[in-house]
């Protein structure tokens, strides 16, 4: 039995992952894989990335003891890993800096990316501006409506934003369009994918770049508590902030892990985005993993109040960790997330992203049920400024 941190083996996490892409792209993903294997060991590359992570992105991000929230809940100590304080306001910058540096090493000057909430688009635009690359971002027209602020931010950052009107006009369609662009322009273009999804080696590369979250937090919690946390909690859209949190702890078998998916209006409503909790195995966007699909294998439309979780697939490593029962995948509804959004704002003076609010919502439920010892770390994947309008509208309707 291999250690869980050893995967992928032959492009796969157990049976999940792989590279189910058109033949044209095989050369591109192989070139990327080879470059990454070399850069991973390259001291100059590592130094450059470390420099940008610290001086540009503001790492390490703090691990904050949320004392008020802890008291309110009366359970274990709750810590927040403050990715909301990273440059751009989310964990996304960890990945975009890493990949943009890779693109540069590969001599590609044009970067394309998809975005849902706009956070990955913003983080891509930032990394590209900093490194002198040209960024073009695909975004569903539906998402452009609900994340206007981020669309404007991307444009300010000198990125071009392409509106995608196909299908459900959200993240999955933005990925489709980015893939079509890549197929057409792969000789000049780097596809900077925003989560641990897509064909191998993307899920591995994005995981490795996001693992800085878990590596830092392990060190921080040991300093503060002298012990590993009882549990880690993170939200799962494609799954990058979650795997970045979990990965360095996978072989610490006593640390429990919870990945929180978006239950939207409830799993029974069909209006959700819980691929692991309510989906089935499928091949989508280049990977074998869990997807929301109908009996004929058509990919279904999803719903979540948070654009960043509104995706019918999930990273293959999560499918694997679910099957081997290393991580428990749970859900939080729109309503629970909005509630957690308000609670954290009121109790701690921190406005969390709606995505991260899903993780918080579960942690709050969970804290009630566990004994007082130990600590829970919730990854606060991003800040909520972008969501204030959506939440205001939602609360307005309820009044």
């Amino acid at each position, binding site marked *: 039995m291999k250690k869980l941190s050893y995967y992928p083996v032959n492009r796969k996490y157990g049976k999940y992952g792989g590279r*189910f892409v058109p033949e044209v792209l095989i050369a591109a993903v192989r070139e990327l894989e080879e470059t990454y294997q070399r850069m991973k060991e390259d001291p100059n590359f590592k130094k450059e990335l470390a420099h940008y992570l610290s001086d540009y992105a503001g790492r390490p991000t703090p691990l904050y003891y949320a004392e008020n929230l802890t008291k309110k809940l009366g359970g274990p100590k709750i810590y927040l890993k403050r990715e909301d304080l990273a440059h751009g306001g989310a964990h996304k910058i960890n990945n975009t800096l890493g990949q943009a540096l890779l693109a540069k090493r590969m001599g590609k000057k044009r970067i394309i990316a998809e975005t849902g909430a706009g956070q990955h688009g913003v983080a891509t635009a930032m990394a590209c501006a900093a490194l002198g690359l040209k960024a073009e971002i695909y975004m569903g027209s539906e998402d452009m409506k609900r994340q206007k602020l981020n669309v404007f931010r991307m444009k300010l950052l000198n990125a071009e934003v392409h509106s995608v009107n196909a299908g459900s006009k959200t993240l999955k369609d933005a990925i489709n369009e980015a893939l079509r662009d890549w197929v057409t322009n792969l000789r000049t273009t780097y596809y900077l994918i925003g989560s641990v999804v897509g064909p191998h080696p993307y899920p591995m590369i994005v995981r490795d770049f996001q693992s800085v979250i878990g590596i830092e937090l392990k060190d921080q919690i040991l300093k503060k508590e002298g012990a590993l946390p009882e549990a880690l909690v993170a939200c799962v859209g494609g799954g990058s902030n979650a795997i970045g949190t979990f990965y360095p702890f996978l072989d610490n078998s006593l640390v429990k892990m919870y990945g929180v998916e978006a239950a939207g209006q409830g799993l029974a409503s069909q209006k959700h985005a819980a691929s692991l909790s309510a989906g089935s195995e499928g091949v989508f966007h280049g990977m074998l993993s869990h997807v929301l699909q109908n009996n004929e294998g*058509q990919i279904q439309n999803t719903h979540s109040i948070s654009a960043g979780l509104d995706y019918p697939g999930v990273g293959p490593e999560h499918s694997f960790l679910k099957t081997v029962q290393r991580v428990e995948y749970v859900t939080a509804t729109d309503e629970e997330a909005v509630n957690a959004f308000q609670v954290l704002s009121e109790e701690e003076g921190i406005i969390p992203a709606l995505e991260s609010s899903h993780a918080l919502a579960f942690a709050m439920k969970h804290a009630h049920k566990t004994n007082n010892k130990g600590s829970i770390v919730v990854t606060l994947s991003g800040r909520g400024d972008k969501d204030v309008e959506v939440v205001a509208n939602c609360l307005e309707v309820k009044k």
Partner: protein
Amino acid sequence: MRLIGKTFQKLKNHRDGTLVAYVTGGDPAPKYTPIIAQALIEGGADILEIGIPFSDPIADGPTIQAASVRALRAGTTPRKVLEIVREIKNQHNIPVGILTYYNPIFRMKLDRFFSLAYKCGVDGVIVPDLPIEEADEYRRVAESFGIDTIFLAAPSTSKERLRRIVECTTGFLYLVSHFGVTGEREKVEEETIQMIKRVIPFTTGRIPLAVGFGISKPDHARVVVENGAEGVIVGSAFVNIISENQGKMSKMLDEIKESARRIKEATIQNLGIHSKI
């Protein structure tokens, strides 16, 4: 040799190229596909490829994306497309292939898909998002039913890989003509001609070579065949006729037939006249 291979061979003996005609199954509705197929055959199509519409067709341009949307709206399922093939095969003695993204097959499970495909008379399957390294089991099951596995080669495919792709392929090798998605194009790029020349040494004596993506006019077909490709795959040109003639069935069928006839004509007696092999 199976039906697809024999068809290429017979035409080659007359120095003719093979016209492989694609339409999306169920576009604009399932009941029309057999009639459209008949028009294609009457126009001169030698092999038919019927597509299973998919919600997320990443290798397709706007034309076939729109066809997929129409077909799905009309309630087309993978099983219905296989039924359509059965109907076509009952009426015509012509090879019929299925083109589908992998997920509908994966969802149905390989055994069930291929046994149904076999019962419906499917001769070959093309899966644009299934590269050879993910296809071991797929090939095994397809072979057990005697169905051809048609793989794709692309402008970015290395020589070493091309050799392996040819080994995995039965029926014909599908050469993607350029970097990009499906859709009509103005002309055949010089790059495509170079590609054909590069690939021919790998396919000669092993498997027929057909070129697709962007081949939409008689001239395109002529150039490709003259340079030694044994066939052309034409899709978006026919799908556009369907799209432009919604609700005008007899005009649609006439135009499809005429378009197929003109493209077919351009392949006749032209095979390899510009290639040295």
